[in-house]
């Protein structure tokens, strides 16, 4: 499952981040490293981007980018 498929308000755990190197490094450095807990707080009114709860802060990520983040429930 990817973060884009995660159910709203469920806590999930990052298992891997896929994608081109620079893109991937950026996500990792923002805190999406293996083992991190993430929660989808909501989706923007136009269907994208997502609002996420990560490491005690709120971060917004587009669904296409969230689909590169593998998570386990």
């Amino acid at each position, binding site marked *: 499952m990817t973060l884009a498929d995660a159910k709203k308000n469920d806590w999930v755990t990052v298992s891997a*981040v896929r994608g*081109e*190197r*620079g*893109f*991937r*490094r*950026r*996500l*990792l*450095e*923002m*805190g999406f*490293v*293996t*083992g*991190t807990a993430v929660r989808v707080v*909501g989706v*923007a*009114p*136009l*269907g*994208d*981007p997502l*609002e996420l709860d990560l*490491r*005690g*802060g*709120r*971060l*917004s*990520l*587009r669904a296409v*980018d969230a689909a590169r983040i593998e998570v386990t429930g």
Partner: protein
Amino acid sequence: MASLVRLPRRGAPATTDRVPRVVVLGNPNAGKTTLFNRLAGTNLRVGNYPGVTVESSEAQVTIAGQRLQLVDLPGTYSLCGRSAEERIAVDALLGMHGHVPPDLVLLVGDVTQLQRSLYLAVQAAELGVPMLLALNMADEAETLGIDIDVAGLSDALGIPVVAVSARTGAGLDDLGARLVSAANHPDRARSTFVTPLRDDFSHAVDAATEATRGWLGASVGRAHGIWALMSVEGGEEDPTPPAVVQTIQALRAELDAAGLDVDNEVAAARYGWIDDRLSLLLKVAPGNGRRFSDRVDRVLIHPVYGFAVFILLMTLLFQGLFSWSDPAISLVEAFFGVLTDGAQAVLPPGLFADFVIDGLLAGVGGVMVFLPQILLLFLLIGLMEDSGYMSRVAYLMDRVMRSVGLHGRAFVPMLSGFACAVPAILATRTMEKRRDRLLTMMVVPLTTCSARLPVYTLLIGALFPAAIGGVPAQGLVLSGMYFLSVFAALAAAAILGRTVLKGGREPLLLELPPYRLPRAATVLRMMWDRSRVFLTEAGTVILVCTIVLWGLLAFPRVDLASLDADVAPETAQIEGSYAASLGRGLEPAIAPLGFDWTIGIGLIGSFAAREVFVATMGVVYGVGADVDEESDTLRERIRNTRRADGTPVYTPLVGLSLMMFFAFAAQCMSTLAAVKRETKSWRWPIFLTVYMTALAYIASLIVYQGGLALGFT
């Protein structure tokens, strides 16, 4: 080649009385600039970073008798990224590529985003530069229920840590004292942090360190090796020496082959270390201010209420720029009107009076007239930024804006462009990335600004019937021009974003900070900064251009004594001027668009500002310069002006072609001056002029020639 060798400081003797250099580093939105401005006070100096056209702020301050040179760096989350902003931060930190190596790093962290702030802090600290950590937003920590053990964090990192609030000023005295102490005793500010990597990575890190040492000098350590493994990519944009790139790429290939993921390992090791320490040092009380923020968000990013509020706020912003600033603009104009009258009364008529009135006063007035809109826009932007709402604008609009490659935050500048492109270009500052800012600046001038309205009103009023068969033709043409400009701006963004300003595939990483009450000091400072920069820098260019344009219209002097009595002296002067010669010279080029040389003069004059076209045409057609777009006399003249062969100069088709030209051409020196100021280079204003003028020419050509081919006249 760059090295860590210390270079002599600017403006200070090389050895004894050297002023310690403190670079200010931090995540975007951590309040870094606010803190920097607080520390800098009135000593702020704006310049460029070495080798790039990105603006830098520096300030020399004296704290407790100790002089310090403060340098603000662009906001960044990491030192491994490849964006222009991140590279500047790395170069400044390592003293590469023309940067003077720092004596001390002041890292500004955000208490409400502590983990991410510490991620940058440990990265920079590990590189061995003495560091002081300022935990900003301490005032908010309380309302958010965040309790952080500052002394414990200082022990864990091995560097001084101070809690401050850049917004309220709390803790700043303590910060100043610590800065001075750290500058004098750098060894007490050197972190003991080491990224705890598994042994599997040792070989690669050691080899990378060795390669980096050969490049950057003897003081390079393991942290530089890790940095090189993470960030060196090679390719055109990477200034790393090819031999180092090769070594690093080989090492990465080895790691990949062994199934070792260095990027995840390093990021996870640092976050793991941070999480471990914070589990003891950080307490977040449940039921805190985040809950308040979430409750506000339930309305402000709600599919229905959220958009209702958004549309309401944007309407207010637009209405404000468009109409509410009007009285203030009129006041500025009235003030310069009084000055003009005064000059006319005092100065004997002649060249000098003309210069003072039409060159100097018109130029200064032409700069000042933007002030009300700039102040108002930055008041509103300041409120939106400081409250945290601007991030929600980006969140709400990202879907729409990104479809043409623009950042969600480009919405406010784009909307402001419909009032005036000049404040809109200054407003692109709300975006962090240079590429996003540039793309927005390149398309904002296509939106129908209020200066185009008088021209459209004049031409539509003169050349189109009020209604054709019950259909309101004039209104349709005008709204058509607005739709065209929206379409053109979005299409231009899509095209430029895929060609000239191609960006890498970057994830949108938008922080949604907790809401807070905006502070007057922050907002006022922003209004003042932007206005000052515009008046002093863009203003100079505008003033010079106004004087040059005046010269084109006022020279060579026409001998007024030899004129026929029935020709107005103003008309005679303009018809004999360099501008008229230029207009005649332009005629072969603009004839295919349906324009004659008199329109050519108008186009040259309109470079000062588009609405000047109306006054210029008033003079050319002998109606006088005091006409406005509602003038019946001017409309009459426009309808009745004939070419030598007796055909009318203006037809509805010529009018449409001319409006196309005004819609697309970069006929606004103030906009170009603002772009020059914001990009710190002539390259982008020149690009803007060329592409917009080409677009204007082609659009007019298609409309006019297409219209002729279809049998319209």
